[in-house]
């Protein structure tokens, strides 16, 4: 609330969690988004890595608190710890690896059943650079005709699934950076205002009650604080 008075744009924190099979490029997407960097060798994620990045929207600034989880199967049982209270999730698959889409679907189902209600989920097919249609001619979600390349999951298939489940859908390349920022921007836009609360600066008062507030907000559009926070 203190922020809302002075800052040109209201800023809110959004907890976002990345899930997906190992080696689909979760960390790379985050790295691209946060540092605009791509790295071949990064320390593996033990449990989860925590990063933050701001995303500027015309009306407001979203500060993403990103939980990048470990992809190895056995870490899956730790995931609930990380997606707890998440307002957004990026479920990543590798579009050259059909099994990773299956795993992604599992995660979507898990999130829909177990995570906060109203969580915004984006399905992201990564490694577009390995396919022949990476020239950038297509925007998000066009049906890609010729799939004679490394691509093993058609845009159609994933998109249909995403539509059925009400997910945002993107195909990206963390390596080239294609579509990466778009994913996060789309998520930022998709987060209902009501579930945002003002950013917690160092001096933010009442932050202790944040999660309660957040939980309540997620369920209904009636929280006055949140409205106030985003008012200007």
């Amino acid at each position, binding site marked *: 609330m203190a922020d809302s008075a002075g800052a040109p744009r209201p800023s809110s924190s959004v907890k976002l969690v990345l899930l997906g099979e190992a080696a689909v490029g979760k960390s790379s997407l985050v790295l691209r988004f946060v540092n605009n960097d791509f790295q071949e060798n990064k320390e593996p994620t033990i449990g989860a890595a925590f990063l933050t990045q701001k995303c500027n929207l015309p009306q407001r600034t979203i500060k993403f608190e990103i939980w990048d989880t470990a992809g190895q199967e*056995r870490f*899956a*049982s*730790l995931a609930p710890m990380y997606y707890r209270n998440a307002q957004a999730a990026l479920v990543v698959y590798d579009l050259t690896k059909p099994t990773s889409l299956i795993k992604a679907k599992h995660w979507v189902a898990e999130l829909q*059943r177990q995570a906060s209600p109203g969580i915004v989920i984006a399905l992201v097919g990564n490694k577009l650079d390995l396919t022949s249609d990476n020239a950038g001619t297509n925007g998000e979600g066009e049906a890609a005709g010729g799939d004679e390349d490394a691509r093993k999951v058609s845009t159609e298939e994933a998109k249909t699934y995403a539509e059925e489940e009400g997910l945002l859908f993107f195909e990206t390349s963390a390596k080239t950076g294609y579509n990466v920022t778009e994913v996060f921007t789309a998520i930022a836009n998709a987060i209902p205002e009501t579930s945002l609360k003002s950013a917690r600066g160092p001096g933010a008062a009442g*932050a202790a009650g944040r999660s309660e507030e957040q939980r309540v907000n997620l369920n209904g559009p009636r929280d006055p604080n949140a409205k106030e926070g985003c008012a200007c």
Partner: protein
Amino acid sequence: MLNLSSFVQKAQQLLDPTQGLNLSDPDRNPSKASLFQSQFRLPSSQHPLYEITAELTIPPANATQGDKDRDTGFRYAGKLHISESYLCFSTTGSSFLQSASTTTSSIFTGQTHGGGPSGNGFTLPLCSIRRVERLHSQNFQFALAITTWNGIGQDDKGKEKKDQKEQRITLQLAAPRVTCERFCDGLKKGLRAGVGNVGKLKKVVSECYSEYLLRPEDKKNATPPDAGLGMMFRYPGDPKKLRDRAKMRLWAEYLRDNGRNVTLLRQPTFHKLIRVGLPNRLRGEMWELTSGSIYLRLENPTLYADTLAKFSGQESLAIDEIEKDLNRSLPEYPGFQSEEGIGRLRRVLTAYSWVNPDVGYCQAMNIVVAALLIYMSEAQAFFLLSALCDRLVPGYYSTTMYGTLLDQKVFESLVERTMPILWDHLVKSDVQLSVVSLPWFLSLYVNSMPLVFAFRVLDVFFVEGPKVLFQVGLAILRINGEELLDATDDGAFISVLKSYFVRLDESAHPKSENPKLRAVTRFQELMVVAFKEFSGITHSSITELRLKNKDSVLNNIENFAKRTAIRNLGPDSKLLSTEELGALYDRFYGVLYERQQRDLIIKQEQARRAKSSRSRIADMASSHDQAVEKGRVGLGPSTSLMDYDAFREFLASMSKWAISDSPATPRRETFSDADKGFYGSLTKRPDAILSPWGAGPEPADHEFLRRLFVKWDVSSSAALTLQNVVSGLARIKGKRDIMGTINYFFELHDDNGDGKVDREGILRMSEALLFLSRRGLEGTLSPANSTLTLSTMGDGSQNDVSGQTVNERFLGSVSAFIRRCFEYADPDHPNNQPAATQRAKVGAEPTEDQLASPDAFAIGDDDDEDDLLAMDSPPGSPKAAKRAAAPTSQHAPSVGRDSLSTATSADPKDRRRVSKAHSERANIALDPSNPLHITLPTFRMVVLADELLEQFFESSFPSSFHIIEGLSSSSATPSSSLTTFSSLGLGAGRAVGAALGGAPGAPAGGRGLRGVLDNIVTDGMRVAQEVVRRMEEAQKELERNALPGQRNEEDEEEDEEDPITPGAGKSAAYRGDAERRSVRSSDRDLLMGADAEASDVALGATGTGRPSVGPEGSNGNTSGGTGKVVGVEFEG
């Protein structure tokens, strides 16, 4: 409803498995061996054999040359122990009495007073003892001087020179003479056995850096042993700052005085030296010594190289996962930017994934192993990794990571207990502590703190055990408490700690006036807080908390696993409801878990017996090692595969037809079981849980079950996954589509998948139908008639045909089914064509074909029956039977009628003649040279032609799987009555039952045909046996080659059961067989039934014997309770 955790609890009450994962009950009451092993960090092969109170005298430093100072050395009173290959001494009292609990044992893993490996003392491999002399002593009866092979790693040349410095300690035994002598005998034995291991010892020791370090300067030209990548790429940190040289000097002095590597004696200085941080080049060696992994290496020095060689070139999932992480393991350390370092890391991780495929590879292991490799050789790191995974941080890297999650819970409880204000704050701000602390534990602080400090933590960790991780974690929070109280979310929390870790080398009190205080680094402060302030955190408090939290953690994991597993079951699973899937999951793993538990009990029982019978101690003890709560999902991969026996048990938990007809008797044995030895010994215990099937009903073993199993086992791996089970059940139960079920049933019997089921198959199908229906039909059945309960069977059978129960009518349906199948079967062979046409023409009339077909059925029965009968039959008859077997295909009067009519004669010889004629009259259906088959459409038609069969497939069969609710105990009672031809049997049932009951070798299931015959003639048994025997003998002959595998199997079972055990109590295998037999006999009755229906003659002819139902035969289902019940009911 079944719940896995209830299983667990139940099992836990019954079990006292020992040792394992620091998780199970034994922690409350750990075994002596496990306490011993953890006190001295010994491999699980070691058990405390003898112990004795003793006083250890270590000669004073640099006084080894003369004897005059003997009394002025260091003295420690304590206990001396001998295991198979170790001599151990500890100043702390014995913790591993039978009554020992963790509380008493904790002092050993507490702080320095008993810290780590047993406080002050030693752990000497017996092979490292060179000489033991008995000394004269005034105070004690026995005094031993022990000379060790200290320095054995030196080259032989220097030996004479070394001799004067040989390590010699004195042990005075304080015990009665007898005890001392026994102890010495044990020692002698052990020493003798140990001599052979001196070679191993030499090899192991030669890889220890201390050997090189203590070598005199002039001999140092040799290349030093591998002390890790640090020797090539420098050790992390500034050696000057670390005061590495000074530390090295101190250690050299200590080792010189107290022995090196395996011969090291632990004195208080040892623990102090460790607390100040190990010098780089000795770090690896000390780690493996204090963790005990050196003893693993000593046990099998070449395991590492052997493993690599053995699996060279092979691939695995773990290897793929390892490969992904190799380049990102401590990438900041130059050694891991090189092929050398990466190669080492790859080899160690790969080798471990092979020796422990259950763990395989878990991310974080790469980081830990990378850290180890800086200080130790590959082999050393490999064994240390084993020690870590098995003992120090059990379950951390398992596939469910339950150890990690559990310790997080424990850590949280400790925080709550020791820092309530901070804890409240965390709760209020909804910060999840484990988000921060989990990586600390999982990677042992290696990637949380700067490496130099992480290694200091590891130094202490290996000596004092996992409690160190908690102490350090708590200290971190305590030191940063103020700032953490300001942090209000995960992000802030993390960043506070991140910045703390970066500044660990800074002064803890930068503003202090006192220069000494200013010199204290934050890390030193951390250590002090950890080990002083949190000295109350002991092994026992952690164990206690682990036990307390174990269930909830495992339940969480299991819920998650269940959720995930159910979601991942594939499209077939959509045919079942979520509740059904959930129940299936519980059932599936419940059965597996229970079976494993039972197996465990059985093994323990065996161990107990071994012990009591004073067999080799080592044997008995070895069973303690693996005793974990194996099978529990949350503990990671045990098995997720269901073998056939488990499958039977699984089905028996939800389908009443899958329950054996034989009641559970204590004498039951499962000779068919691979581990009959265990079960066999068990069966003498009345305790139900110790029976091979636990407390549940004994499952049947019918061919139908086998077929189902094989059908569901799509990968032909002789084991089912949950996925297989779900897919299999989904096809039966999911669609609720009669055609689907009919098709499925047909496919089940279509062995080669060619869309045809031959004569044998038809018979099997009908057997299966009878098998499935013998406990009554379920589901929605025809509105007509009452659904008389089975218990009223007696009455029912008195009624006439119109009053039959549904179940009874079903028998008729099945017999009609057989008749029709043969009627509409297609010939395989053109020669058979005319017959087929004829068959088609005659339609439902009781022609020879039809009438013969029931014969075929009887003949098609398995030959086990005939074996049994053969025992009773006069010698020479087999030949006749063989002759009879010659297919004659002559159309003749109805066989059934024939036998019935002739049955009036009681003369066995007549019987024989009759049966021969009978066989000769066998028609095409019997004729193996005229094979026939039915196709799916025919089958479908035949099924749909009968209302009851239709209902069976539409509703009854699918709903006989009670996935969710399971079977109520009453319906699960094995002795509940059956609806078979046999049990419907009347006076004959009794007669046969009684007769057979007394007859050796004939106690098995119903002998329907025989029963029927008995009904008519007074001495019908013999007659029937003859008839059946001959027919079957013939058939057996014919079928010998047809299905060799199956036949053999049955033959085997026969062999076992046959001559020995009379009466009801039989082996389980036998029982299973009895089950089948009863069905078969019912089938046989079928023949009569078909006959009766067809001709209308039967009823009249049989008179009192079969008042109600044509088809029933009496039968001798004598082995089970059923037979008895029936028998009683029909008495008189």
